[in-house]
């Protein structure tokens, strides 16, 4: 090799290397950005991070549909959906702050690690200025933490754990969906009416943050009625066969089974429970009952016949405006444009994701900037209406939305495959409100807003 080292070669290499080193100083533009991923071009990128595989894949697919619809409406396509009924009129269909809205999608796999990797690539590679989505509270908590560190806004999708806006709340994270405490507060009076005040409950609980807080909330609310909690068994999220968990219920002396499960988990556990004949049993002289505190149309579809008569709670339902009146305006507008595009009514997961996207866009318009801190300020203590849930408040103390809760039941004689759930009653917002320092939500701290600057 050394015989190739000539004076000419050295000179040439030196010149090339010198030129190479000089290039960056000529072309290097200023990289000073006022905050993470400040959009400088004619478009702005949002990141939609949803489960496309795993037990919550159905919810994820519906969330993605809603996001696409919301982006279409923000960019002026379609019929505008809930933008027409929204109490704020800042969104004109010309994107956000005049910038065209683009989006990237990712698969959370319902795993915290994968979700964070996906969100990171959206922030670092695609320049997303807001991340939304998620259908598992474990994932939502993890991604919310990431967004806080990276300095972008996290608009939580379907996440129902108390911890998301409780112990794990973050200044950059916002949740429109209701939570386990609200479910329990809304459901308890209905359960008392249906099943009486003298019941023995057996809980099967998904073993992660959502399951824990859901179970804790339901136990507290039902014990306040006079119910007794016989047992609480934790089941892994990845479980698909619950037979071994159902069998012990029969001999426990319980007369109510509470399934703190969601998505594919709930479909499987409910099917197993029905197969074991739990619903035909008489225990303690009463009919054996099953309760599913967090309900959705998608789950009802998955569970089929088995869901009939089983009570639960929802954040929103597509029949709300038709059955409960004008207070829930926006519902029909959304159902119509979603139905026209996809051919079936939206789930509550789709609704909350659509609403979150509009709320974010509106907050940016009102703040006049994509700066996460300005957006957060615009969202805090923001009162709005016309997004299908009636008058709603985004509380500044914990970034949780407060609105009415829908109590539902599996319909006995459904007319079609989308009409599986009937609304029992709507619990007014006052009844489900709580103090920001409620013991079930204590231990967290919003911290300071981070813009990544």
């Amino acid at each position: 090799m050394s015989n190739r080292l000539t004076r000419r070669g050295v000179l040439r290499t030196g010149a090339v290397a010198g030129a190479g080193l000089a290039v960056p100083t000529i072309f290097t533009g200023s990289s000073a950005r006022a905050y993470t991923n400040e959009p400088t071009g004619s478009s702005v990128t949002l990141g939609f991070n949803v489960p496309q595989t795993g037990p919550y894949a159905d919810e994820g697919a519906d969330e993605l549909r809603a996001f696409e619809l919301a982006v279409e409406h923000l960019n002026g396509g379609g019929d505008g959906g809930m933008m027409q009924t929204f109490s704020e009129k800042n969104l004109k269909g010309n994107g956000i702050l005049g910038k065209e809205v683009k989006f990237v999608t990712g698969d959370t796999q319902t795993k915290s690690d994968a979700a964070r990797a996906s969100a990171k690539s959206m922030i670092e590679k695609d320049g997303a200025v807001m991340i939304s989505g998620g259908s598992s509270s474990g994932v939502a908590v993890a991604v919310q933490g990431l967004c806080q560190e990276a300095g972008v806004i996290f608009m939580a999708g379907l996440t129902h754990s108390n911890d998301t806006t409780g112990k794990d709340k973050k200044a950059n994270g916002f949740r429109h969906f209701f939570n386990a405490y609200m479910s329990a507060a809304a459901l308890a009076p209905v359960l008392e009416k249906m099943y009486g005040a003298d019941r023995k409950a057996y809980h099967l609980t998904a073993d992660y943050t959502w399951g824990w807080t859901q179970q804790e909330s339901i136990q507290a609310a039902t014990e306040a009625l006079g119910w007794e909690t016989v047992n609480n068994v934790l089941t892994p999220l990845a479980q698909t066969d619950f037979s071994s968990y159902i069998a012990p219920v029969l001999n426990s002396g319980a007369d109510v089974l509470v399934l703190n499960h969601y998505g594919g988990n709930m479909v499987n556990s409910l099917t197993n429970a029905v197969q074991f004949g739990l619903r035909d049993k008489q225990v303690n002289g009463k009919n054996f009952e099953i309760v599913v505190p967090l309900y959705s149309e998608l789950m009802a579809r998955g569970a089929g016949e088995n869901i009939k008569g089983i009570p639960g709670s929802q954040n929103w339902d597509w029949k709300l405006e038709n059955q409960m009146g004008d207070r829930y305006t926006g519902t029909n507008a959304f159902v119509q444009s979603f139905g026209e595009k996809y051919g079936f009514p939206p789930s509550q997961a789709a609704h909350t994701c659509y609403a979150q996207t509009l709320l974010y866009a509106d907050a940016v318009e009102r703040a006049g900037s994509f700066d996460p801190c300005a957006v957060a300020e615009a969202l805090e203590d923001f009162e709005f209406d016309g997004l299908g849930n009636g008058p709603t408040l985004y509380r500044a103390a914990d970034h949780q939305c407060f609105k009415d809760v829908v109590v539902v039941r599996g319909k006995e004689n459904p007319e079609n495959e989308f009409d599986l759930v009937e609304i029992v009653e709507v619990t007014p917002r006052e009844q489900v409100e709580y103090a920001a320092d409620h013991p079930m939500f204590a231990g967290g701290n919003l911290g300071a807003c981070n813009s990544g600057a």
Partner: protein
Amino acid sequence: MLGLDRKDFILLLVVFALVVLAPFLLNPFPTNSAMAQFNAGYPDLMQRFVIFGIFAIGFNLLFGLTGYLSFGHAAFLGVGSYSAVWMFKLLSMSVVPAIIASVIASGIFALLIGYISLRRTGIYFSILTLAFAQMSFNLAYSVLTPITNGETGLQITLADPRILGVTATESGSIPVTNLLGAEMRSTYIMDVGTWAFQFNVGYYVCAAIMLLAFYVSVRIFRSPFGLMLRAIKANKTRLNYTGLNIRPYTLAVFVISGMYAGLAGGLMASMDPLAGAERMQWTASGEVVLMTILGGAGTLIGPVLGAGVIKYFENIFSKINSSVLESWFAFMPENMQHAAVYVSEHFVGPGWHLTLGLLFMLVVTFLPGGLVEGGQRLSRLFRRKPQKDAARDSTQSNPAE
């Protein structure tokens, strides 16, 4: 040089160059072009490349040299992550104690598991390691939740003590991981024309450690100890009959391999302070086996290549959705476009596993030595011609000089 022969030293230099220039090499397409989808030069993915490279290098020390196929290596990765996050929670946000703790903890854990598992060989050894890893996963997932926080994953919070550091920064947020004050997440973005190259502190920290890990692995490969390990792979029984006890050797390399995995876990937590139980799941253990075999088991560079390919698929192919596909096939008539999108949809996005599976199948069938064998075949194919060229060059260029 550095105690390596010329060939190994050149290999080390090549790896060094690739790793240092990765922000350029992995970002070949301008930011706004349609091909930008395939750029991999962003900090998170580059970090993953080198971290999983370390993981695979360590696994290859065990599998490539001794032939002991461990199906539970993810357990060590998980233990490393948890120890690192606990260091961030208790001690400070500096990555140094976290990485040291993760290596030590996983080393001890590997010693325990190795001591028991190495009493058996072959398939029984694989099953034992798989069983231990699955046990660790279940412990982390639902039994030891006070330590691991279960499915939610262990995260740092504003309430952590951090006795040597600060609990919260002055502005009230969680402090970030750093090395001597340099934040792992800080990135310098160099705009060159329409390209944006990202230079991330965390990546270069990982890269430096990976180079060191690679160097140590080369030294082990070439050492008398490495030779002994190869002898174990070649014929254990014969080695036993010569009066040698192989267990100290296998246990030593098992622990070293576990420490590599722990190091990778510790680095993962240092880049992103979170540890989830799914890092210990059997799929994660299987992934490192795939990486090693895909790249070329028993070769020096193979596992690093394999890790890169699998992570690239996982992060880039999984993000191609149907609207991206539609824009690619937009030049076709509508019917053909729908058909093309429908077919290719199954190979990208959530279907990236399928593409990877096909690739793995092809590699194992046609290139049993992995990507490294592919590279060797290619170079052999081209070597003859360049020799002729060189000969012609010399005859022609000499007169000109």
